């Protein structure tokens, strides 16, 4: 009997050690990812850094609070709000926003940039889909390590999900998961679920700062029809069309215009326009990493966008963008975002001379493709400490 007990104890101990080891190995990686701080070097144009909770008090002390960078120009002018990482698994948006923060110099008007709009989602991941936790961008001073997040906020920060998300204020029934998706919770409310408080904060920025243009940067699958485009409601469509035609003619890349559907609620390009004076635009750049029929979700696929299965589908005419052996490298996607944002500002300024926005020192498409994204980032180790902001 004693021998049998000792055998059971031995087996139990072995099981326990194995399971604890697996739990510690897996858990530690997730813990480190959630608490990893990415340094952002404020460039010469940054005049102040606020928190989103300054505009939406319900975010104070939560993981959803995030940095808001202000780049105020030498002269008065119009104001633009740029939001990235609304979906934290679409990193070209974040990389483009960082280029603006680290390099832009504003002559007229003000840039307001929120690089990690869904901050909670940037600390979440999708292990079931084999997402890498980080990716690295090569620079002249080493590599810049960046967290790869998820589409939705972490359930550690907002939970439980409802059976059906009832959109506020239209009461349209949306998928339960969209209660944690900051591109379904617009316009939000001060005392709603956490992600509604995030979008409410952005709406307050637009109202209090009298923002003229809001640009929400995204990425979309190559098999999704709304990709490689500018999504705009009626009130923004003229500027979007001119920007689309200009980048096509002058810079040689396609970014067509898609109308914002009036019956689908909660989207930034819909609700910002309907609930404020601001002109909204949502930019989509293709991201093969998010397509379903690809090989493993590796950092390489995330950065170069090359996948043999997508290539095969492209030859069968199943994709909504052109696709060949060169894939869709990150430089192209980030360069497109930079150029389209600059072109939107130029087109807006041409029509609103009293509210001009003039920005210098931000690279356009061809420069980003030629020099690489990392060329535009600064070394946080050699930068002034007061210029380095952890996000």
């Amino acid at each position: 009997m004693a021998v049998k007990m000792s055998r059971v104890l031995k087996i139990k101990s072995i099981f326990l050690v194995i399971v604890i080891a697996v739990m510690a190995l897996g858990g530690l990686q997730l813990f480190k990812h959630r608490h990893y701080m990415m340094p952002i070097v404020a460039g010469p144009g940054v005049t102040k850094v606020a928190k989103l909770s300054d505009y939406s008090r319900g975010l104070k002390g939560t993981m959803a609070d995030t940095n808001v960078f202000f780049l105020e120009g030498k002269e008065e002018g119009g104001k633009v709000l740029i939001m990235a990482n609304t979906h934290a698994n679409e990193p070209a948006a974040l990389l483009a926003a960082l280029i603006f923060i680290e390099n832009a110099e504003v002559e007229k008007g003000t840039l307001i940039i929120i690089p990690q709009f869904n901050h909670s989602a940037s600390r979440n991941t999708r292990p079931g889909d084999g997402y890498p936790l980080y990716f690295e961008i090569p620079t002249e001073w080493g590599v810049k390590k960046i967290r790869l997040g998820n589409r939705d906020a972490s359930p550690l920060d907002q939970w439980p999900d409802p059976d059906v998300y009832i959109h506020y204020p239209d009461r349209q029934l949306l998928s339960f998961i969209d209660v944690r998706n900051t591109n379904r919770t617009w316009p939000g409310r001060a005392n709603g679920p956490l992600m509604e408080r995030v979008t409410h904060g952005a709406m307050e920025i637009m109202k209090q700062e009298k923002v003229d243009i809001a640009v929400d940067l995204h990425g979309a699958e190559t098999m999704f029809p709304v990709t490689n485009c500018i999504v705009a409601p009626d009130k923004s469509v003229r500027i979007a069309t001119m920007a689309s035609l200009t980048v096509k003619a002058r810079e040689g890349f396609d970014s067509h215009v898609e109308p914002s559907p009036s019956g689908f609620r909660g989207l930034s390009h819909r609700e910002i326009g309907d609930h404020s004076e601001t002109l909204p635009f949502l930019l989509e750049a293709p991201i093969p990493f998010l397509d379903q029929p690809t090989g493993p979700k590796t950092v390489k696929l995330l950065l170069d966008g090359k996948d043999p299965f997508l290539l095969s589908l492209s030859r069968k005419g199943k994709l909504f963008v052109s696709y060949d052996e060169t894939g869709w490298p990150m430089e192209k996607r980030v360069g497109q975002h930079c150029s389209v944002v600059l072109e939107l500002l130029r087109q807006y300024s041409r029509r609103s001379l009293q509210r001009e926005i003039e920005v210098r020192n931000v690279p356009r498409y061809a420069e980003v493709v030629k020099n690489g994204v990392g060329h535009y980032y600064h070394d946080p180790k050699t930068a002034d400490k007061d210029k380095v902001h952890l996000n």
Partner: protein
Amino acid sequence: MPLVMTLYYAICVFIGAMLVWNFIREKKSLNDMLLYLLVLVPLVLRILRIK
């Protein structure tokens, strides 16, 4: 933390404790021993606010 979230963590602790208790009491089935521990993993990660 909303009440429902607090209740959820309390339920996690309760079910986790039951699983540990069953693991300790189990003397015969190796399968069951391993399964108790595996089912425990997500509950522990949630209680520790890791995932």
